[in-house]
């Protein structure tokens, strides 16, 4: 996952509205309620930011595996989805990996994919895969 322009606008929106609520000069109980809501909006923006930062770090690691990993082949054995994330299927894939220098093995992966790609994940399809040379379980599937 990665943050897009809509995500950046959302974060900015939560920060600005949250700030406006916190500094609004409203006296009494109503003011405290508004400030509390503002803090919650700040917290939401903070959560989104932390999630985006984590995803960016994960993307950088995937790029490293892609550039430094051992290239192999992954054959889809089973594919299915029982959940969606932002209207994109969270696919459960079972794959047979053929990686040079490693025994053939079966692994499972969970991957959020656009609908179009998810529709094409059928048993038998062969995809490129890159495996971390130091960690055989750390892999990037090219879909």
């Amino acid at each position, binding site marked *: *996952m990665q943050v897009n322009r809509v995500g950046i606008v959302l974060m900015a929106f939560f920060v600005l509205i949250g700030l406006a609520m916190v500094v609004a000069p409203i006296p009494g109980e109503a003011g405290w309620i508004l400030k509390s809501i503002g803090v919650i909006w700040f917290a939401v923006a903070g959560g989104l930011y932390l999630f985006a930062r984590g995803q960016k770090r994960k993307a950088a690691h995937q790029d490293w595996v892609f550039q430094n990993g051992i290239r192999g082949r992954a054959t889809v054995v089973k594919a299915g989805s029982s959940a969606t994330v932002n209207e*994109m299927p969270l696919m459960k894939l079972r794959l047979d990996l053929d990686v040079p220098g490693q025994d053939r093995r079966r692994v499972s992966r969970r991957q959020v*994919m656009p609908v179009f790609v998810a529709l*094409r994940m059928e048993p038998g399809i062969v995809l490129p895969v890159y495996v971390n040379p130091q960690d055989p379980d750390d892999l990037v599937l*090219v879909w």
Partner: protein
Amino acid sequence: MADLDATYAAFAAEHGLESLSGFAAGPLTPLLVEAGNGTLGPAVRGGLPGGVSGIAGHLAYTRNATFRFSVALTELPGTTEFAPRLFCVRRGRRTRDDEFYGFEARHSKLWTESAALNERYAVSTSPFQDPNWLRQLFSPAFVDWLATEPPADFSFELAYGALLGSIEEDRPDAAGLRALCEATSHVAERIRKECEE
């Protein structure tokens, strides 16, 4: 619609193709997904001009406005392990909206190494597509051909072994259909050759 049927019937007769009133291609490429189940109608099937076997047909769908394309579809088995997805879409063509609530799957990246190609097309692939394979595919000769030879509104989508060439013609004539099929065949042959190498 009668004109369209007549054009496809004449095209089929001229090239010895089977005429079909409709054909459900399925959701093989993004453009076909836009059209629901990817139903082509009218359509023709057989050995298309240019050399590949496949189906050519008329694709129409409505999303706010009605979009109409002429498409040529062929299979390229064995390409998925080299390039699962490769979209070369004419700049300015609207395809699909991939914005999802602020966070989206990291699903594509633009290939921008060729200025000549980028002037005319937006080329996108998986974010982890082997760049060396792409550099070999987009040889100077192939880039030159893509930039100058295909019909002006030509685009192609390679997705999991299916290649779809398309033009934005709502009432193509036989020459337009032939140019579409020949351009798609040329792309198919280039991709097949690169996979074999």
